[in-house]
């Protein structure tokens, strides 16, 4: 692959003699939507932390192409009863500060929210009063203010109701094309992410497959074996 945005080479990670990742290697092409799928405990979050630079204790190399701007949207936890009220306006405004690595430019909130399909009336509502889908859309809007070239989403539909799921995936696909971003999508929701993806990484400590989704479904038995067995 020419000039990949992310190159992962022979990454191995062990904790207390337990191997979390075993010799994982792949590259991600610019402006592609890549799904990282796998069961619980497969090492997906560990791999994401290594790619983001949060976890530096591993063997192998991870290279992000110089000049790329990465934004990350962590998994949404909907039931946080201790969270104090914070308006959508405040949630977004936290991002617009040089101290957080973003510019302090004035935000057009109406445009920012409508871009991700959230009504502008929600701007002064409490962020935790929004539905899971709306929260994820607002989180995406905030991430986009950092003008990312790479967007990493960890289980974006984990706390989102079924009806909102397809809309959110469509939004991610649309934004990826619109902003010419590379998107790395970590998900359990295999059947929904496959049609959207340009590349699928099936991880279960080792990388079981790295291909276009159509190759998975056309190879006889491969889909069932690889996806439903390993992932």
């Amino acid at each position, binding site marked *: 692959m020419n000039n990949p945005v992310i190159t992962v080479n022979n990454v191995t990670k062990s904790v207390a003699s337990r191997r979390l990742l075993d010799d994982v290697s792949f590259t991600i092409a610019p402006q592609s939507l890549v799904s990282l799928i796998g069961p619980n405990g497969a090492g997906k979050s560990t791999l994401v932390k290594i790619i983001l630079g949060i976890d530096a204790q591993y063997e192998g190399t991870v290279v992000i192409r110089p000049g790329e701007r990465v934004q990350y949207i962590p998994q949404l936890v909907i039931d946080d009863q201790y969270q*104090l*009220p*914070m*308006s959508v306006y*405040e949630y977004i405004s936290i991002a617009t500060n040089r*101290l*957080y*690595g973003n510019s302090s430019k004035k935000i057009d909130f109406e445009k920012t929210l409508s871009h991700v399909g959230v009504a502008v009336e929600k701007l002064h509502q409490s962020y935790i009063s929004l539905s899971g889908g709306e929260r994820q859309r607002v989180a995406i809007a905030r991430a986009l203010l950092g003008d990312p070239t790479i967007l990493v989403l960890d289980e974006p539909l984990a706390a989102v109701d079924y009806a909102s799921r397809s809309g959110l995936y469509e939004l991610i696909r649309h934004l990826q094309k619109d902003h010419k971003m590379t998107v790395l999508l970590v998900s359990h929701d295999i059947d929904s992410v496959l049609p959207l993806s340009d590349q699928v990484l099936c991880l279960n400590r080792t990388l079981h497959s790295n291909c276009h989704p159509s190759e998975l479904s056309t190879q006889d038995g491969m889909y069932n074996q690889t996806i439903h067995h390993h992932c």
Partner: protein
Amino acid sequence: MELLTYTFVQYAFLGGISMAILTGILGPFVVQSRQSIASDMFAHVALAGIGGALLVGIGPWWGALPALIVVSTLIWWLLDSGTYSPDALAMFFLSGGLALALAFVHIARDTVFSFENYLFGSILTLTTTDVLAILVSTIVVVAVLWCLWYPLLGATQSPRYLIPFRRTPKLVQLLFFWLLAIVVWVGIKTIGGLLIGALLVIPVLTVRNWATSFKQLVLLSTATSVSSVSLGLMAALYVDMPPSSLIIGMSILLFILQTVVGSLMRKRQM
């Protein structure tokens, strides 16, 4: 009302309301960052500073400030290193501060000194210098919060609401610890080191269900905190009770009142 013409009463109101503004504004940040116990830890560290000041022969309250700044920096550094859990560190400094304070006071052999004034406050004995120091502290804390509102809001949020990874400026978290140290410093002179935590936390719990934004929460908790201090001080002028206990009593009363009103309103809506 004639009592309000006395200088010591005016000083008590000036110092008390300044402290209420400080706790009302910083309280939501403290509760949000799950650092409620930190105020108690800082208060015990301040006692060690007070003991140290007695040893070197300077005003005890003034000795508490450098101790608070140094130790809050140390605690921030230890928390950032991730080696020790926050609750273990809290207990370490809480007990360590108290033990050091007892040792210093014993070595200083000051027979007149009493910890009680700093544990439970001495708001009715504030001097002109004390009030000036409290007013300056209030202006400094409010100005810093005004200028760095969103960075502080970001740095004290739960990690899942933060701008994730590598974006949380560590120095903003240190600044938050210093602001808390200053509020505790003002607190030990007014309401007392052991009671300042209540004024940081109870007003926030009282109004949290009535706000839809953090800014609203700060305004409402400041109003609640100022009301508690004003009512408590007014009561202390007429009832022979320690002002600190009356202030916290008022704060608890307002909490109970809002709980009852809130639950009645919810029942009516159902």
